[in-house]
């Protein structure tokens, strides 16, 4: 909500930092594998670590009782990732959110998934 007239009158905004512009790299510096038609997404996927170098795997509690494990930041073929997880542990109950690139697994399996990632994704 917008602040009241009094709050606006008595507030002196701190000057904002200048937005750094995106610098366009030269064409020669880019390998062809870094371009969009490198075949990524068909039979492959990628999960990026967080900036603190952790896997994006979280325990999620909804309604104080429903416990799921959420894997975020999945790019590419998310159905293939689901099948790969099921090969490792066929008992996992997995749902997939393709739009957001999330995978939800029933129950708290955070440590198990992180173990798979440390062995297989590193």
């Amino acid at each position, binding site marked *: 909500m917008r602040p009241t007239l009094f709050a606006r009158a008595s507030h002196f905004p701190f000057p904002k930092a200048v937005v750094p512009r995106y610098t366009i790299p030269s064409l020669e510096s880019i390998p062809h594998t870094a371009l969009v038609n490198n075949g990524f997404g068909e039979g492959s996927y990628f999960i990026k670590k967080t900036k603190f170098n952790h896997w994006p795997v979280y325990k999620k509690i909804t309604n104080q009782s429903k416990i799921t494990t959420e894997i975020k930041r999945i790019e590419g073929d998310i159905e293939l990732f689901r099948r790969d997880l099921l090969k490792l542990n066929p008992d996992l109950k997995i749902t997939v959110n393709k739009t*957001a690139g999330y995978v939800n697994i029933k129950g708290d399996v955070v440590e198990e998934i992180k173990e798979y990632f440390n062995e297989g994704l590193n």
Partner: protein
Amino acid sequence: MFKQIRTLATQASNAKPAFHIGQPPQYTLASLRTFPSLEPHTFIPLPAKFFAAPNVRRDQLWSAVVFEADKARMGSGNVPTKGDKPFSNRKLRPQKGTGNARLGDANSPHMDNGLKPFGIKAPHDWSTDLPTKVYAQAMQHALGSKYKEGKLYIIGEGEGVKKHESDDSSIDFKYDHESQGPEFVKRHNLQNLNLLFITEDVKSNLVAGTASLAKKADVQVKEDVEVRDILKANRIYIELSALQWLIGKYST
């Protein structure tokens, strides 16, 4: 409390887990053109995360558009209430003895007098909140979807750009004349299309030249561009420096 007993847990196999990891693309290519011929001269690499995201998040676009529309509302609606006291304070009839119900003055909102209980008063604020990251992603998806449809034309100066005498590497007409905009539309066959010009700073010839196109052409300085403007446009002409500024501002 949340302790789970996983009776069906199985032992993980000792073999190394087989994940199919690939490297996502980092860059996508776009043509760099000159204005007003729109002739392509060279390619420039742009971030793939911004322009080539596989899923367009329509939910985020919707949130951003609602956020902008709420912010744009004036909040000038005003309704007379009892507090405005349009009538006298005189008691309409005696408290007792008439046989009718008790009645005070004519300012009561239950009477047929146009007054509303708790009516809205101007000015009021309809603006809503949206996380900055959601708005930034909406901007990415809006620009990215136009790029994928081939409706984004980037005008700028780059290596190997050989331009004609009449061409320029910024979006502006050479002369201040009202026929420049309609001529541009005619030459490029853009009749009945919504055009959006995004410039680094105010371009007076462009504003004057496109004035006769009325609602079919929108000229915006980079700071004023909204997600709504981008989604409405059928063709977007953007200066390279303005695009670099937008990418810098709306990268998540």
